[in-house]
């Protein structure tokens, strides 16, 4: 366990020693701010209109404001997380420091978990910046906290999938640009994979919908924690990390 923490700390320090952490944090909070602001303007206009038309049910902050913001956030992550994971393994392989890790008394699992935890810590720091906006909502409005909490849970799980997959792709190449591009392409594919689903047969449609990574987030943002989605995300993360372990091990045998 202490080995995992040592590596996770090293990874996290590495992010902050290079510009990556600052670029990622800055870009993410900027994009989040833009989406938040535009959705908020729209929400304001809607509620003015509703009030002007003489009441009716008050529109729901959770449904009309927070949910769309969360869904937008998942798309921003798609662009940002490849930058976080692309260098994890490829850089170590390029500079030869992987030789230090693989000849130290560490198991492959400890190295992978260390890198996973390190990347997740940066990801959580990114999410922490969004708490400001949520705080503003609580100060001036009256949102439900439970759907917000499940929304964050969903985002964290989805981010975990991206990080696990990113680690795997990074372990396959020495070139971090290649790792970044492939990771981005795969994330994009997992996002749009069910767009043509409605034009296909019922079975294909189901399979495609199940594969689409962002679709599983929807229920979380509504405040529903469905085991189906939990299983999807957790098994995705576990499988990603398992394949990374295989990839690192096979590298040894191939030399």
């Amino acid at each position, binding site marked *: 366990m202490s*080995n995992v923490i040592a590596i996770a700390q090293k990874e996290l320090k590495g992010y902050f020693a290079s510009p990556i952490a600052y670029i990622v944090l800055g870009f993410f909070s900027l994009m989040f701010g833009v989406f938040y602001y535009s959705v908020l303007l729209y929400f304001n206009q809607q509620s003015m209109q509703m009030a002007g038309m003489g009441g009716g049910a008050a529109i729901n902050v959770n449904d009309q404001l927070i949910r769309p913001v969360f869904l937008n956030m998942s798309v921003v992550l798609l662009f940002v997380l490849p930058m976080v994971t692309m260098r994890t393994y490829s850089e170590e392989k390029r*500079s*030869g420091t992987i*030789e230090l*890790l693989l*000849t*130290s008394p560490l198991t492959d699992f400890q190295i992978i978990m260390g890198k996973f935890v390190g990347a997740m810590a940066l990801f959580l720091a990114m999410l922490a910046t969004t708490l400001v906006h949520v705080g503003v909502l609580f100060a001036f409005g009256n949102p439900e906290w439970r759907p917000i909490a499940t929304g964050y849970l969903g985002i964290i799980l989805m981010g975990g999938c991206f990080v696990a997959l990113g680690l795997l792709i990074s372990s396959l190449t020495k070139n971090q640009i290649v790792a970044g591009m492939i990771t981005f392409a795969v994330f994009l594919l997992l996002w749009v994979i069910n767009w043509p689903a409605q034009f296909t047969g019922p079975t294909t449609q189901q399979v495609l919908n199940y594969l689409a990574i962002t679709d599983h987030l929807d229920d979380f943002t509504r405040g529903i924690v469905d085991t189906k989605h939990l299983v999807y995300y957790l098994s995705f993360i576990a499988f990603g990390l398992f394949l990374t372990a295989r990839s690192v091990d096979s590298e040894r045998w191939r030399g």
Partner: protein
Amino acid sequence: MIEVQNLTKRYGPFTAVDNVSFKAERGEILGFLGPNGAGKTTTMRILTGYMPPTEGRAVVAGYDVLEKPIDAKRRTGYLPETPPLYPDMTVRDYLDFCARIKAVPRADRKARVNTVMERTRVADMATRHCAKLSKGYRQRVGLAQALLHNPDVLILDEPTAGLDPKQIIETRRLIKELGGDHTVILSTHILPEVSQTCNRVVIINKGRVVAVDTPENLTAKLRGSETMYLQIDAAGADASAALAAVPGVSRVGTSEVRGTVVGYEIESGAGRDVRRDLSAAVVSRGWGLLELRPLRMSLEEVFLHLTTDETTAPAVVEQRSGEVPVE
């Protein structure tokens, strides 16, 4: 301490290490000598558990590197060919991280980091980022990293590469010191390094071990005969014949003539010292004896002899036999 049995590593059809076996006892400094691409680095990588062998077995500090990798790695310090430094860490942070992953107890960590920094003379760069270090410092920080957990076995891949002459001497001295209680394997293609630091040499070529012995024995074994260099001033015309008549001398060759000074190369049967008789023969005839010294086959010649293809080797050795050894 280290036991390697029939180690083989193949990359597809290419055999990098072919049935290599050797042993190293505690406290011994074993030199790994061979041309580039001979399989030195591959063998070391197998010993450190970086990659598994295709066949054979390697036991380090009593633990099989395949079956008990964690135990073996805990007792092994490794300096790879390129020192594995993280460019954006300071030297102290880097060594502290290494100490953590090498299971140095928390309480000892700071003291250990300071000790190895002193020993490898990098303490003055403790707060410098690894990216900004010169080649010599990188190499020494890499060495510091290998020493952190006070391992029983040290495996050093070209530890003096990229150092300046003063640093080379310091590093060799450090390695010799370490040899007392650690078992050291070092690879190099600098020959004097082997004769100066190592107790025993393993010469490998094309993945095979071609010789294992002490540096002295290796040079002696390959010498079929003794060769003396003799320089005489104002020798008579019959000098060659007179020298050849000395008991034990098998061949006399003239190697250089400078005015009245003539240099001879004199061969005699192995193990037979003809210096006394030679000097007596020269002096009794009233010639000036300027120089008389044994010519030794240098390790360099041994190395070339062993690592060059059979057909060309004798020619090379023949050509070089007239040269004065480098050392």
